[in-house]
């Protein structure tokens, strides 16, 4: 699963450009499930289990990542851009990016430190003050390489470090995709439907269509969620902790989660000796916002991996959390699909 995560993180796929990740996933799960790709690019996979499900359950993870989109090319060949998804402009300053299908390298430029005046030195540049420099001097030269509408991702390699830690771009939510692929590759006790969704970062758009099509009775959204267990964050704002296993949410900005499913996750974790932690904040949101209000409503849970520095080039997770999360997902999906949450 680690190798798969590495390969998925290598694909450049901001919202709207998920095809490369979709193809990679289809290649992995093709032999194990019935697949289709819908009008928006969502990949929906039906995995036959040992027995038919008593409750129709959908698990989903999104394929897209946050990134940038080129909005215009200046006369001097610099690129202005906007953020696709929510990105703090302070993590853009000083970064290198890869643009378009060809992965053209560029650097995110801003006024040099030594020439800042007055308050400029104390103020982080807003996105309007940033631009991408691809090393050309004219608009014509730039247009040979890139176009307005091209998307870009941060240039950040997948690396293992520390005590079982991983740093990479796009862990949100390629880790979710990797875990669902792993579940599809393994025998399952009950039938399950999986949705690999598009456009989560720009408003959970893909999940609306996928959930309508699948029409599940229950759903588990599999994500990476923000861990703020870092210095200078007070205890009560730390949200969740890397190394303490999967994070189960009771509420966030988009969803108040099904309380019975929330409790079921913790009781299964306790029974089976899986580490598990609550998400101790109502911050953020994910595909559940779209999933749980589909049709006449869907009972929904969110099970996530704790991830530091979300929406930055350097997302950091601990691999042992992925293994524990997969165990919880297997237990929870078997329990729900088997009618245990009725």
């Amino acid at each position, binding site marked *: 699963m680690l190798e798969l995560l590495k390969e998925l993180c290598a694909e450049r796929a901001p919202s709207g450009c998920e095809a490369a990740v979709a193809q990679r996933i289809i290649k992995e799960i093709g032999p194990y499930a019935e697949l289709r790709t819908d009008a928006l690019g969502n990949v929906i996979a039906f995995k036959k289990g040992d027995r038919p499900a008593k409750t129709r359950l959908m698990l989903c993870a999104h394929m897209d990542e946050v990134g940038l989109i080129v909005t215009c090319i200046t006369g001097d060949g610099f690129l202005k851009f906007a953020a696709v998804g929510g990105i703090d402009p302070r993590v853009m300053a000083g970064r290198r990016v890869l643009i378009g299908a060809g992965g053209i390298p560029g650097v995110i430029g801003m006024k040099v430190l030594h020439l800042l005046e007055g308050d400029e030195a104390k103020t982080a540049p807003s996105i309007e003050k940033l631009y991408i420099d691809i090393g050309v001097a004219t608009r014509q030269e730039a247009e040979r390489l890139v176009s307005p509408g091209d998307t870009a991702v941060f240039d950040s390699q997948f690396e293992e470090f520390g*005590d079982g830690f991983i740093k990479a771009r796009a862990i949100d939510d390629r880790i979710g995709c990797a875990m669902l692929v792993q579940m599809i590759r393994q025998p399952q006790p009950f039938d399950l439907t999986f949705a690999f969704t598009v456009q989560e970062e720009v408003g959970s758009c893909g999940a609306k269509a996928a959930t309508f099509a699948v029409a599940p009775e229950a759903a588990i959204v599999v994500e990476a969620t923000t861990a703020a267990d870092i210095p200078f964050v007070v205890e009560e704002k730390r949200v969740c902790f890397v190394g303490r296993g999967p994070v189960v949410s009771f509420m966030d900005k988009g969803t108040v989660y099904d309380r019975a499913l929330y409790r079921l996750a913790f009781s299964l974790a306790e029974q089976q000796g899986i580490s598990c932690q609550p998400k101790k904040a109502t911050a953020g949101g994910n595909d559940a916002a779209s999933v749980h209000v589909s049709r006449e409503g869907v009972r929904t849970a969110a099970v996530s991996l704790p991830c530091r520095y979300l929406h930055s080039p350097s997302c*950091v997770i601990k691999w042992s959390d992925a293994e524990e999360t997969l165990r919880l997902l297997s237990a929870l999906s078997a329990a729900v699909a088997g009618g245990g949450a009725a």
Partner: protein
Amino acid sequence: MDGLKELLFGLSRACCITGGGEASEIVLAELARLGIPARTDAMGSIIAQVCAPLPGKPHLLLDAHLDEIGFTVTSIDEAGFLHVDKTGGPDLRVLAGHEVTVCGREPILGVFCCKPPHLTTAEDYKQVPSLDESAVDIGLGHDDACRAVSLGDFVFLRREPTLLEGGIVTGKALDNRAGVAAVLRTLSMLEERHCGIGLTALFPLAEETGERGATTGAFAVAPDMAIVVDTSFALTPDAPAEKCGRLGQGPMIGIAPTLSGEVTRGLIDTAAGLHIPFQREIMAGRTGTDADVISVSRAGVRTGLVSVPLRYMHTANEAVALEDVSGTAALIAEFIRKTGGLANA
């Protein structure tokens, strides 16, 4: 330009702050390849005697500082995060989520912590993080972190160099590895190192923390003339044009009250004579480079300054044009030949 890109990439990748580092090894290896004897002084600066001083001929010092900006570990907290202070003047606006190399027992990856957007407000987005509120995550608990890293260890911005379109190299530490590469290229261009003058190359450390390596290095070498090779600002859309050179338009020859008019005119005449593109960098007082200390070393040294135009100084996005590096090398090599040919006392 053969091999210049590879040399510059290797120098950019290497880490080096006060005290030395891998960049020193690359320079020493290149000097050895050129058959130039070199030594390292008490400050870690490299002094290479290219041509022994000749009676009645000037002794020229070529200076290009080898150190880069970075950070030093000041403490390790109970959760294993590193707290750091700056060495030189890194641009703090880039720290949030930036990858670093921590030169502990082994070089290891670290990440400057940042709060996720879900926990920040629009007001927070305008705040430049201070080092007092920053920490480096190395993915280790306290005890393991203390085994892997010691207080005082150096921390560098981590970035693999790459080539952009148009022969632009981007990466960390091009201030001043571009200058170092230019000087090494100059030395390789002097045929069999017959210069007609005494010539010593100095690659000092600690420029970024107060030009200290150049202070002691210049004293040791005791030259008559010097050319300092550094980097200076290249124009970007948001910078004042009168304070910047431009990428791709050649070496920036410094003109300043504290630089030698004779050496400066000599550099300009050499560039014009060679028909190579060059630019003028006008400064109104001191230069902010090793020239400031070399020119007042001992009883004074006639000093000039040539800079490679560079964008995004003191971030890992620094960018220079390869042709400007080679143009700088060609200019200095020709200046040396001309100065040698003059055969004056």
